[in-house]
C-alpha cells in the first residue's frame, strides 16, 4: 500500500465522520443540483447537446497534432509565442525564464488547474516573485495555504464566517464589513492593487480554438480579463487536450460548460484571446505566450481504451454528483484533480502504484457517467485502472490468494456449496457463543460500521432441494 493510500484511508475516515463538513457540502451541492436542473431545461435537447459536445471534443483529440499546429501558426503570425512543454518541469522552467528575463516582481493568476498540476506558483515564489490568485475562491484557499477543494469552486467547503475571519486576519485593512457583498468588496480592493502592480498575468484556457487560433477563457468574476489584459506579459498555460476544431463549436461547448459547471446559461465573462496587443490597440499585453503542456497526456492518447478521458472539460459535474466526493470532500484525495475524473486520471498520470487506491475508492454507482457533459464513462476507466493495478502486481497478497481460492471454489458447485456451508457454520457458531463480530477477522471491516446480518442455517440451494427433491 502506498503512503498516499494510507493517508487517504485516515483522512477519509475523519471527513466521513465530520457531520459539519457533510452538511456544508450537502447545502452547496443541493443548490448546485437545483441550478443545473433548471439550466438543462434551457436546452431544447440536453442529451443532443451532450452528444454534440462529446463528438466535438473527440474530433479535437483524434486530430490533436494537426489542430494544435494550426492553432500555433495563427498565434505566431500575430506575434505570440507557443511553447510545447513535455512535462511539468519543462513548463515551469519556460515560464520562470520568461518571468526572469522580464524582471517580473508580481504575478497575477486567473484560475487554472494546469498551473496547479505543474506546481507553478511555488517555483515562481522561490525566485522571489509574489504570486496572487485572483479568482475569489482561489484567493481564499491561497490565503489559507490550502490546495483548491474543488476544480470549479475551490473554497466551497468554507462558510462566510470562516472567510470573514480569514480576511480579518490576512487583509484586515480591506475589510469594511461582514456581509457577503462586503467580503467580496474586500477581496476586490485587495486584488485591484495586485492587478495594477503585476508585470505578468498567467491564465489557463478552457478551449483552444484551432481554426481561429484563439484561446477561450471563461470566468465569472472578470478576473480573467484583468489578468490577461493589464500586465505587460500574458502567459496561457494549458493542457494539449483543450483544442477544438472550430470557432462555431463554442456555440455548444460554452453553454454546456456553463450549465454543468454552475447551472448558468453562459459564464459571465467569455473571452477569446489571439495574441499580444497590436499596433492600433490600446489594451493588452505586449508579450503573449501559450505553453502547451503534455505531462502524460500523449500517453493517455496512445491508450485507445482510455483516450476519451482527454475529452474532459473540467466542469466539475462528476465531483458534484459523486457520493464519495460528497462524503470525503476534495482535500482527502491529495491529488490535483479530485473526484471521479481525478481518480481516473491520476493513476495514469502518476502511476497506479501511487494513485491506484483512488480508482478503488468508488462504489461504481456510475452517477458520474450519467452527468458527464462529454459522456466519458468514468466508471469504466476506474475499472480499467483496477485491472492495471492487479496486472502490475500491486494488489495485496491476501486479496490475490483470496480470489485464487474463490475462483477454485467457484469452478465446482459442490465445492462452492461446501465452503459456503462451512463458512456459515463457523459464523453461526461464533455468534451463538457471543463472540464479538470484531473478533471475526476480515469480517470486522463490515461489522465495524454495520449490525451483523442474521446468518441462515440453510442456503437457497439446500432449501430448493428440500422443496423440489434432488435431481
Amino acid at each position, binding site marked *: 500500500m502506498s503512503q498516499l493510500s494510507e493517508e487517504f484511508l485516515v483522512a477519509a475516515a475523519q471527513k466521513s465522520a465530520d457531520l459539519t463538513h457533510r452538511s456544508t457540502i450537502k447545502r452547496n451541492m443541493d443548490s448546485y443540483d437545483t441550478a443545473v436542473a433548471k439550466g438543462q431545461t434551457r436546452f431544447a435537447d440536453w442529451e443532443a447537446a451532450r452528444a454534440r459536445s462529446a463528438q466535438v471534443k473527440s474530433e479535437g483529440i483524434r486530430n490533436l497534432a494537426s489542430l494544435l499546429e494550426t492553432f500555433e501558426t495563427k498565434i505566431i503570425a500575430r506575434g505570440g509565442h507557443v511553447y510545447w512543454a513535455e512535462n511539468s518541469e519543462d513548463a515551469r522552467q519556460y515560464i520562470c525564464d520568461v518571468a526572469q528575463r522580464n524582471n517580473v516582481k508580481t504575478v497575477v493568476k486567473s484560475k487554472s488547474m494546469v498551473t496547479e498540476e505543474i506546481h507553478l506558483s511555488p517555483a515562481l515564489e522561490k525566485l522571489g516573485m509574489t504570486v496572487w490568485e485572483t479568482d475569489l475562491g482561489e484567493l481564499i484557499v491561497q490565503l489559507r495555504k490550502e490546495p483548491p477543494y474543488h476544480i470549479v469552486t475551490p473554497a466551497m467547503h468554507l462558510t462566510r464566517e470562516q472567510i470573514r475571519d480569514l480576511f480579518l486576519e490576512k487583509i484586515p485593512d480591506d475589510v469594511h464589513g461582514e456581509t457577503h457583498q462586503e467580503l467580496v468588496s474586500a477581496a476586490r480592493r485587495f486584488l485591484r492593487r495586485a492587478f495594477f502592480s503585476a508585470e505578468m498575468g498567467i491564465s489557463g484556457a478552457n478551449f483552444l480554438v484551432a481554426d481561429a487560433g484563439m484561446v477561450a477563457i471563461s470566468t465569472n468574476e472578470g478576473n480573467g480579463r484583468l489578468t490577461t489584459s493589464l500586465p505587460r506579459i500574458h502567459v496561457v498555460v494549458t493542457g494539449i487536450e483543450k483544442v477544438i476544431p472550430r470557432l462555431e463549436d463554442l456555440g455548444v461547448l460554452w453553454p454546456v460548460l456553463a450549465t454543468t459547471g454552475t447551472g448558468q446559461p453562459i459564464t459571465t465573462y467569455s473571452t477569446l484571446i489571439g495574441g499580444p496587443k497590436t499596433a492600433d490597440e490600446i489594451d493588452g499585453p505586449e508579450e503573449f505566450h501559450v505553453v502547451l503542456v503534455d505531462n502524460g497526456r500523449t500517453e493517455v492518447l496512445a491508450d485507445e481504451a482510455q483516450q476519451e478521458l482527454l475529452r474532459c472539460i473540467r466542469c466539475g459535474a462528476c465531483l458534484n454528483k459523486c457520493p464519495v466526493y460528497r462524503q470525503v470532500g476534495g482535500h482527502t484525495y491529495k491529488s490535483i484533480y479530485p473526484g471521479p475524473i481525478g481518480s481516473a486520471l491520476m493513476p495514469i498520470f502518476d502511476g497506479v502504484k501511487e494513485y491506484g487506491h483512488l480508482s478503488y475508492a468508488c*462504489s*461504481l454507482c456510475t452517477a458520474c457517467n450519467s452527468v458527464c457533459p462529454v459522456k466519458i464513462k468514468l466508471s469504466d476507466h476506474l475499472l480499467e485502472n483496477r*485491472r492495471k493495478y492487479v496486472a502490475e502486481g500491486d494488489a495485496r497478497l491476501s486479496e*490475490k490468494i483470496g480470489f*485464487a481460492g474463490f475462483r477454485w471454489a*467457484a469452478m465446482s458447485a459442490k465445492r462452492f456449496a461446501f465452503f459456503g456451508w462451512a463458512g456459515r457454520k463457523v459464523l453461526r457458531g461464533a455468534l451463538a457463543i457471543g463472540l464479538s463480530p470484531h473478533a471475526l477477522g476480515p469480517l470486522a*471491516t463490515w461489522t465495524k460500521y454495520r449490525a451483523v446480518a442474521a446468518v441462515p442455517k440453510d442456503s*437457497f440451494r439446500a432449501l430448493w432441494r428440500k422443496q423440489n427433491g434432488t435431481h
Partner: protein
Amino acid sequence: MDKRVALFIPCFVDQMQPQIGLDTVTVLRRLGYKVEYPEDQTCCGQPGFNTGQWDAARPCAERFVKVFRDCEQIVCPSGSCTSMVRTHYPELLKDSTLRDEAVALGKRTFELSEFLVRIAGVSDVGAEFNHSVTYHPSCHATRELGIYEEPLTLLSRVKGLDLRLMKDASECCGFGGMFSTKFGMISSAMGETKVANIESTGAEYVTAVDPSCLMHLDGVLRFKNHTPKAIHIASILAQEAR
C-alpha cells in the same frame, strides 16, 4: 407453450439471503411459470471483475455461460448481477470463444421486476402488503439497465401498500461490493445519508431490486437502531393477497 424460466440466484443470496430466492420462486409460480434452478451455478464473477481480478472473474463468467446456455429465459432477483451478465460480460469475455454466446445470453437474462413487467406483461402480481414502503433505485439497475418504472409499477399495484418516494432517490446507498469493506467508513457515511432520506419519508420499509444494497442498508439501519426495515421487492410481492 409452457411458461418456463431458469433462476439465476446470486451467490450471496444463495448463502446469506435464501429467503429472497424462495420468494422469487413463489412470485413466478403464482404467475404460472415453471421454475428451474440450474444447480451447477455458482458466481457470475462480479466480485473479481470489480476488483480488477479479471483472471478470477473470467472463468466464472465462462462457466456461467455454459451453465445457462440452454435456458430460454433467465430471471435474477438482482439488478447488479443481471447487469454483470448483460453489460459487462461482452467486455470481460472479449477474447473468449464464448463472447457471442455471452452477448446473446445477456439479452435473455432479466432482473425480476424487469422480467415481470416488460416480458411477462404483468403489473399486478396478486400481492398484499399493508405497510408504507419507500423504493431505493439501486445504481446498476437504474443506470446500467434502465430499470426504474418497473418496480414502481409492481409496488403501486400491491394491495394495501403505501408507496412513498424519497429525496435524492438515485444516490448510491454506499454498498459497492468490496468497496464496502475496503472503505467501510465512506460506505457507511453514504449509507447514513441514504438512511436519512429513507427516514424522512416516514416509511416502515425500504425496498429495492438489489439484495446486496439491502444487506448493507439493513446493517446500517440496525447499527444505530433506526426504525425502517430493509426488504427485497420479491419478499413484498410474495405476500399473497387474501
